[in-house]
């Protein structure tokens, strides 16, 4: 209990300092994607893929190619993001829509696309490693945010994937401050039951 008392004292003073000096409390810093990631050339060889940030996916799918170079709409694959709480992960059928024909430009691409075709023919789903995993007591309706911020708002939370050969977490979406700061900025509701129920 002595501990509590000390913590209490400290916290009180800390918050006082916080409010007297800054006016708003600190916290909720978000890591920004580094310049290194953003400036990447589209041609990669196996060597430098190892150095990329983010988890390695079963198939080396490159957002920077699809969304960046070929300028494909996010919603082409994440089909339900504008109409449903969930963005939707493209079915392999969607991939095959192109890759039944498109076989890949260089050897690395061809290898990856081969994996895809194999999975499809064998009815084996691809187990993508999840990057953004929102805690289960938070409800984040994607459709509402797309509606409010426009179809290209994805980057607000997910970072600029058009420059990511391999997707990584730019913002800690489980950091409540990350959501709140935005809600404060845009003067939208901060009611708890907007997200928690």
């Amino acid at each position, binding site marked *: *209990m*002595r501990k*509590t*008392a000390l*913590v*209490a*004292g400290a*916290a*009180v003073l*800390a*918050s006082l300092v*916080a409010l007297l000096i800054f006016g708003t*409390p*600190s*916290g*909720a810093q978000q890591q920004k994607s580094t310049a290194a990631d953003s400036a990447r050339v589209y041609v990669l060889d196996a060597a430098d893929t190892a150095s990329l940030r983010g988890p390695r996916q079963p198939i080396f799918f490159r957002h920077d190619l699809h969304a960046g170079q070929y300028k494909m709409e996010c919603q082409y694959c994440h089909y339900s993001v504008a109409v449903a709480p969930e963005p939707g992960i493209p079915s392999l059928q969607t991939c095959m829509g192109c890759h039944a024909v498109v076989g890949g430009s260089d050897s690395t691409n061809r290898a990856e696309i081969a994996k895809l075709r194999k999975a499809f023919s064998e009815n084996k789903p691809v187990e993508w490693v999840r990057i953004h995993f929102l805690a289960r007591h938070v409800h984040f309706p994607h459709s509402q945010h797309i509606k409010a911020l426009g179809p290209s708002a994805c980057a607000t939370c997910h970072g600029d994937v058009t420059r990511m050969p391999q997707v990584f977490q730019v913002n800690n979406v489980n*950091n*409540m*401050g990350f959501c*709140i*700061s935005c809600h*404060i900025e845009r003067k939208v509701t901060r009611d708890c039951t907007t997200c928690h129920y």
Partner: protein
Amino acid sequence: MAVIAPNFTITQTHADVTRDVVATLERPSRGYYLALFGAVGLFLIGLVTFAILLRDGLGHAGYTPPVMWAVYITTFVFWVGIGHAGTLISAILFLFRSPWRTAVYRATEAMTVFAVMTAGLFPIIHIGRQWIFYWLLPYPNQRYLWPNFKSPLMWDVFAISTYLTVSTTFLIFGLIPDVAAVRDKVTGWRKFIYSQLSLGWQGTDTQWRHYSRAYLYLAALATPLVLSVHSVVSWDFASGIVPGWHGTIFAPYFVAGAIYSGIGMVLTLLIPLRKSLRLEHMITEYHFDNLAKLTLLTGCILFYSYGMEYFVAWYSGNTFEQTTFFLRPFGPDWWAGWSMIICNAFVSQLLWFKKIRTNLTALFVISIFINIGMWFERYVIISSSLTNDYIPWAWDHRLNPTWADWGILAGSFGWFGMYFLLFARNFPIVAIQEIKEMIPMPRRRAPGGHH
């Protein structure tokens, strides 16, 4: 030979005082070790119980909704209450310059600190998700969230932590000169330890000058604090709408009760302590007589409060209040209701007789009754009020405590006893410098003579 009060004189010299008190720090008896091990054992029981609660949830305890608070909060209030006597004696009586406090105040103040340390654990033990208790503190966090200062429980957080901090510093502050005195008597590694703890005290005129001032102000600050703390605790209940809680007299009623229970505990601790530490000539009948009188006074206030509660319930014409207060003595938990009334209101009335006030055995027995009675007071206030409130359909789920409740209760006594025993053996349990202050310094010629 100093006459402090008509029936109290001190025969020792300064040197005797130092000697006797330092003597209490010498190699302890077997009884002491038994007591200490007992305390540690109880504490371990509590620890294990808590571990189980952490693993499975609070379900093991005897909560029977709608009784959402039970033995843990009862014990919390009990220990907070205990604390109050200490501060009363050390601070309030200091301001009143009451001569008899000096011999006992160190012990009671130590009791205060450890009682509050114990009490402070309970809010944490009793909440559903103990590991995030710190969410009750207003610290800047990434969620941008602040606690709700309108909640009585937040007042509690502040009251209890303030009380703990202030009474702790008050105790340590008072100890400094005595630790120095001990330092100058002992040798070897103990000398080293004590000289570290004495913070370089030498008793120079400058030190005394600031020290005695500061002590006065600390006492002056502690006085309103002690009154406020239990008022705040009482508002934990009084600001709820539960019939039996929602009373305006709660604050004074609780403060009186707190001091009452505190003195009870002081008696329970001092009577054996004085014997085992051979301090009979320092803590005398005179002191116990005064303590007993204080008990009697607060006991009478309690008596009045009890009566008032029932009267108001009847007079209000409020059916909810009336039901609750009818069921206290005549409901299914009548035994708790009566043990509260008898132990507190009636037993204390025995202290009208000087024979009993000065008979230590009697006092000791009475003090035990007081402890039990005051625990039950909180038990009754909490459980009986919650068992039968507004919606009859939710009634008849009576609180029936389980091993988990008793385990934690025992643990709290162990935790408290452990600290108190350790303190009693390693620090002057009687305030050396204040006793000396009462004994006039030796003079060459009769006082007043000048040349």
